[in-house]
């Protein structure tokens, strides 16, 4: 599903160059549940944002299914991203001025989905995530766990094949974190490929594989 070859990212400071990622090679199969681990500054989130196509300033080869992401134009990358990827952020990134319903509807509003169809899809997700009663609330009226639940609902509403989660439980209480990880496990069992960045061994245990990064290099893969 994903093949990365010699992915590198660096910043120039005058004459010197600081590498964030060095010769990253990895393969992720469809249905996999991969955890990317490593100390702060290892390049975990950078790698995730490259996979999520939020970052385009890198070199190397990135294949997603049959698409050579490294060769695609910005427009085509956006098309591939919308077709395959859902993203979950550590700090939820819900829009404060939109209700739960509107937040979940947001990714669909940027895709060619008819309004009536969108209503059905959002209603279905609200039902699946047991948050129907919260659809008219604003994010600041929800707990951190509930906000992350909404953020995951927003990530899966467009039925992505790949979910990328950047420390999804980083801001949550342990119990709320467990609930979120259980949810990821169920999504993975239903066929969604999941790649998460985490500092937690317990969260990594929900996945099947761990990629360890250090100073931008993959140091261990199991």
């Amino acid at each position, binding site marked *: 599903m994903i093949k990365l070859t010699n992915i590198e990212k660096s910043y120039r400071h005058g004459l010197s160059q600081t590498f964030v990622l060095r010769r990253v090679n990895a393969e992720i199969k469809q249905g996999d549940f991969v955890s990317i681990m490593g100390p702060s500054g290892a390049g975990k989130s950078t790698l995730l944002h490259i996979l999520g196509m*939020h970052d385009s300033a890198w070199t190397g080869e990135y294949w997603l299914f049959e698409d050579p992401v490294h060769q695609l134009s910005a427009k085509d990358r*956006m098309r591939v991203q919308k077709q395959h990827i859902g*993203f979950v952020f550590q700090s939820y*990134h819900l829009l404060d001025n939109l209700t739960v319903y509107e937040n979940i509807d947001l*990714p669909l509003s940027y895709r060619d989905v008819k309004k009536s169809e969108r209503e059905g899809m959002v209603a279905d997700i609200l039902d699946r995530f047991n948050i129907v009663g919260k659809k008219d609330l604003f994010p600041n009226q929800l707990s951190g766990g509930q906000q992350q639940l909404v953020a995951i609902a*927003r990530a899966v509403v467009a039925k992505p094949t790949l979910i990328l989660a950047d420390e999804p439980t980083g801001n949550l209480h342990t119990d709320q974190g467990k609930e979120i990880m259980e949810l990821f496990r169920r999504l993975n069992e239903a066929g969604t490929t999941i790649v998460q960045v985490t500092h937690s061994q317990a969260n990594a245990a929900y996945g099947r594989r761990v990629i360890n990064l250090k100073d931008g290099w993959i140091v261990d893969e199991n």
Partner: protein
Amino acid sequence: MAELDRDLPVGEVKTIEQIISDSTGQPRFRSFLIASFAGLALLLAAVGVYGLISFTVAQRIPEIGVRLALGANPWQVFSLVIGQGLKLAALGIVIGLAVAAAATRFMSGLLFNTSATDPVVYASLSALLLTMAVLACYVPARRAMRVDPMTALRSE
């Protein structure tokens, strides 16, 4: 005049153009002043809309980053910012039209050869204000289009 009475003093010799100019000078000056102030008000309104929209765009950079990360294309972000400016301008125009309509009684005495309730004047001024608002929003909207989602997401 000299043929009639050569001792008759003749004062204030003026051409007909000068006489017309004297009689219309004051209203013409008033009109010039009012037009200048109206132009200045229009410019200030445009600068105000530009400042406000620029500030709002700067405040909304994380939100714009999230929207881009969720699949919005830059033109959708552009429309979002222009739409916000147009809503603001439309609200201002509605209030302005209501105030102008209420002031017609006082204005009609100052007007010559035109009506205080001329719909063409109202429509053309509204169109001019909307155009100014779009122009004022253009630069912040273009700036919003260039937001890098990575930087925006990390800035929060």
